[in-house]
């Protein structure tokens, strides 16, 4: 029986689970706050004697390229969010309201999930090297835009299906064109869906490693590739590496925690319905 009493047993089980699931992050924060001496002398030496020096090093004081990776990740993620919204929202309206393509566009969008991203590795490399786009942030905006558009299409069409038709019909009777209805009536009502698309696209784009590793060399390298290379190139500077990783995790984490309601709705709607 599901009890309404406070369940402290459940509390303890979940607390332990949450700590375990976040052990990697807690460990990185722990090391980022300790000096390299403390780190080297043992995992359980509780001396937080580094202040923010590791964070300052990661953000440029020690001369790593990390700050430019960070800027790249931000530009790529924001650019992708913009591109995905501009491509998917009008198309979803055409599909859901104007019957464009019958059921086929959405079926293709669902079916595309079956093709692993790795399939596009070689073709994308060949395509983008032939037009000299390799190692620019544009190439990653395009590629991530493509991989995220299908989910955005599904989220927007689900959201449109839940909007009442009456207001749009009334506006149409009053002579509003399709574009006016979209701009003045539909887009303002799609706010929650737009946040859901933005937060999911931001997360997935920030997380991209596979395409970044083949399509960038140095100028457009994002934090994911930068941090993974960091471990191999500066193997013993554990404190700086930890700080760099913690900083790399922060932007999507903060965005997602603030928009958690939309993240949960988007992930479960996009996943369950997509």
């Amino acid at each position, binding site marked *: *029986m*599901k*009890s309404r009493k406070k*369940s402290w047993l*459940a*509390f303890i089980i*979940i*607390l332990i*689970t949450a700590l375990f*699931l*976040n*052990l*990697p992050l807690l*460990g990185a924060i722990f090391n980022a706050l300790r000096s390299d001496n403390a780190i080297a002398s*043992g*995992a*359980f030496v509780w001396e937080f004697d580094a202040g923010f020096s590791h964070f300052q090093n990661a953000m440029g004081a020690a001369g790593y390229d990390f700050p430019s990776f960070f800027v790249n990740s931000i530009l790529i993620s924001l650019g992708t969010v913009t591109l995905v919204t501009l*491509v998917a929202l009008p*198309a979803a309206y*055409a599909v859901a309201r*104007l*019957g*464009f393509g019958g059921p086929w*566009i*959405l079926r*293709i969008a*669902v*079916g595309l*999930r079956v093709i*692993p991203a*790795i*399939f*596009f*590795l*070689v*073709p*994308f*490399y060949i*395509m983008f090297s032939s037009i000299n786009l390799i190692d620019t942030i544009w190439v990653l905006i395009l590629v991530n835009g*493509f991989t995220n558009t299908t989910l955005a299409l599904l989220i927007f069409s689900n959201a449109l299906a839940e909007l009442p038709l009456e207001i749009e019909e009334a506006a149409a009777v009053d002579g509003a064109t*399709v574009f006016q209805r979209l701009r003045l009536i539909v887009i303002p009502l799609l706010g929650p869906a737009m946040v859901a698309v933005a937060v999911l696209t931001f997360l997935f784009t920030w*997380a*991209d*490693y*596979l395409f970044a590793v083949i399509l960038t060399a140095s100028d457009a390298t994002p934090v994911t590739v930068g*941090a*993974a290379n960091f*471990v191999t190139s500066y193997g013993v500077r554990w404190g700086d590496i930890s700080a760099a990783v913690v900083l790399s*995790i922060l932007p*999507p984490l903060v965005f*997602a925690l603030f928009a*958690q309601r939309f*993240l*949960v709705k988007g*992930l*479960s709607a996009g*996943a*369950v*319905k*997509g």
Partner: protein
Amino acid sequence: MNQTRSLEARRASWILASPLLIFFAALLVLPIYLGLRTSLSRDRFSNPEVELSGIENYVALLGDPDFWESIRFTLTFAIIATSLQLVLGFLLALIFDRNVPGKKYLFSAVLIPIMIAPSLMAVMYRLLLNENIGIVPAFFGLFNIEVTLFSPNALFPLLILLDCIQFVPFTFLLFYASLQNVPDELYEAASIDGSSYAETVRRIVIPLLKPAIVVVILLRFLEGIRNFDVIYILTGGGPGTMTQTVGIYIYKTAFSQGDFGLAAAASVVLVLLLAPFTPWIIKRLSTSEQQ
């Protein structure tokens, strides 16, 4: 009037959909064509001349034991990881689905791994498991247990565990969201009828959650097939080719050995292996759309 409106709607729908159509043409149709053509060509870093070579790459691929081994490893990994994440995510959702103190904060805390890039997670795993400075080896050291986490025997379970740390939160989230649709009255009615909690879960909750279960299996399995980042960063597919996923096989064939033709053939075969399930997947994922 009606006619002009539908004409206007048709014109508008083409204009509104055109960015998507251009996108699909440039980033879906063209790459598929290029992938197929490359798979039928001799295209290597060592030789600038690209020439059509028929099914040569496919013959080489199907005779390459490393390829089949990578398929076997990928499937085993995806099946075991999916099953564990299904069960653990469901149990966690059941435990969560009651009056837990501090629920809001615990919920956010459990979801945090979803918000972390797998490759960054992999870097943190390396710090956590490092034999000199890692917390995990140090913890075992307290009990004088010496662990070699990256030894061949421990490697597979370790990679599965690390995959669970990142993706149990995701399966948990999907199950928890669908549990919210099970009305409390159902539990009450069942308990009045003398049904125990375990019986209620087995006979009522699980059947009600069947659509969510199917979706979780599909999504996790499809994601599991494309596993790359964490394993590549932690082991590079090694030792030898022991933990080589199909993704790592394709990546290495193309960018370490420089054989684009063979890598493209492997990509095509991978999609062909998954293709028979596509209509079924579209149906499963689209029927739940109407609910």
